[in-house]
């Protein structure tokens, strides 16, 4: 669903994403992790074709409308300019489908509202909601787009624990329905529990790509994140707890 081949994004002369090659297939929820400034956002924007880049992304080769139907993008900045109602805002996700999809569009919007628990919010002005509620509305917009692939930049930052888990579960459901999600996040515990695969970025390079249990090793945590952590497989899934920082 997404293929990156030596994707490189330059800021000035300096590569912020350096020759990243990776693939995403249906059913996957990929957690993109790495310290601040590792190039996670640039990788996602480059993959979407929103940033000038070298190398290839299967998405950026598409024309803009076809790309929007193939992949939805959730930027980290949660911008909502006007006091649109929640229902109208979520319906913006239908733009790439044109007018001929109007009937399907209404159903898709309803489905997205329901999934994000926004049924009772539909007539509220989105700008009047709390930050966490706005984040859920924006995720609902991406769901309403019905693109098989969702690229999300820290969608759960600032959400309460229940909303974080619920959002990861929505992503899992999206993947299980044949889609795929690539989401950057900083909560390694949630990443370990809810992602089928992790991409670890450090200084522009993709330094690890694999199942959470294989990737989150003591050595990698020390090298990339400069932390020591407790990691344990339990009957309820992996539990991950950062313990202390290591001297840099």
């Amino acid at each position: 669903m997404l293929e990156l081949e030596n994707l490189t994004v330059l800021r000035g002369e300096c590569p912020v994403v350096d020759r990243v090659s990776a693939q995403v297939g249906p059913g996957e929820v990929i957690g993109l992790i790495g310290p601040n400034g590792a190039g996670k956002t640039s990788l996602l924007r480059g993959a979407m074709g929103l940033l000038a880049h070298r190398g290839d992304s299967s998405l950026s080769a598409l024309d803009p409308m076809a790309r929007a139907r193939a992949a939805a993008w959730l930027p980290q900045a949660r911008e909502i300019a006007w006091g649109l109602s929640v229902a109208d805002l979520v319906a913006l996700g239908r733009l790439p489908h044109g007018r001929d999809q109007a009937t399907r569009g209404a159903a898709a919007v309803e489905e997205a509202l329901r999934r994000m628990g926004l049924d009772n919010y539909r007539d509220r002005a989105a700008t009047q909601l709390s930050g966490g509620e706005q984040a859920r509305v924006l995720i609902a917009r991406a769901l309403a787009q019905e693109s098989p692939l969702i690229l999300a930049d820290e969608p759960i930052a600032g959400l309460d624990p229940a909303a974080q888990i619920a959002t990861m579960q929505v992503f899992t459901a999206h993947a299980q329905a044949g889609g795929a999600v690539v989401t950057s996040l900083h909560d390694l515990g949630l990443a370990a529990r809810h992602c089928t695969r992790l991409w670890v970025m450090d200084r522009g390079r993709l330094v690890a790509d694999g199942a959470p249990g294989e990737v989150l090793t003591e050595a990698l945590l020390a090298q990339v994140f400069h932390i020591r952590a407790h990691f344990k497989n339990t009957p309820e899934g992996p539990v991950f707890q950062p313990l202390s920082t290591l001297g840099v």
Partner: protein
Amino acid sequence: MSYRTILILLSVLCAVLFAASLLIGPSGISPLHGLSALISGDGAAGLVMRELRLPRAILGIGVGAALGLSGAAMQGFLRNPLAEPGLIGTSAGAALGAVIAIQTGLYALFALALPLAALAGAGVAVALILILAGREGRALVLILAGIAVSALAAAATALVLNLAPSPYAAAEIVFWMMGSLADRSMTHVALALPFLIVGALILLRAGAGLDALSLGEDAAASMGISLKRLRLQIVFGTALMVGAATAVAGAIGFVGLVVPHLLRKSVGARPSRLLPASALGGAAMLTLADIATRVIAPERDLKLGVLTALVGAPFFLSMIRKMGREG
């Protein structure tokens, strides 16, 4: 109230005000007589109706729609309720063109010299903006370029005033800049209308892009909106409408700022819906203001731009105060 109802109500309001604009004036023609004279074109009344009031009423609607529509488009594009159509320098450029036409005496040579010079001024301003802001620049760069070009045009206008050959020429320039719809002919209508219509068609097609832009430039681009194309649409559409409006009516402020703001809530804040509503609202407001200039001071030639600023500025202040409170 549904969106459709709002559009119908605004249309009716425009029609009523258009009729009122035709029927109200200093020559004291009775409404019935006026209407029959308008249709037949006979006698002095026919002349007044066809040569003075009809073009004035048409321009009131056209110029008002231009200001309302381009104001809504500009606010939607910049995602800022304080944006106004003059922001990208077209009205300042048009004013400079007109002022040069007055200064050089060109405007006395033929009727359309002044509006044509104003249109040329708007065109030069747009060209400068696009060169300054590049073809790729973000909205912020466009605003800054607009401010720079406006400042340059205003300075050049001041220079022309400074060097005016006579107090009469200076007074002529100052009065023109105040904005008015008095004494315009059907020639002015014929000149402005094509630009207004083409500009309106361009701007009305930008609705979906402006809706998407509510979620930011990155999100809009990811939803298949070409930001480059949208920007050209907004710049050219606004330039055509505001350039033509300024060319025939002079500088009229605050309508493009206030009307979108007044109507935003009632159309559910969607930029695409605000565009047509704001066009109708602008047409109604400017026609109403133009009628007011005739009713308030029939003998004194109260300038339309003065009236809109007198009413608009306090409204603008209250708007800013409210924004400050809402924080």
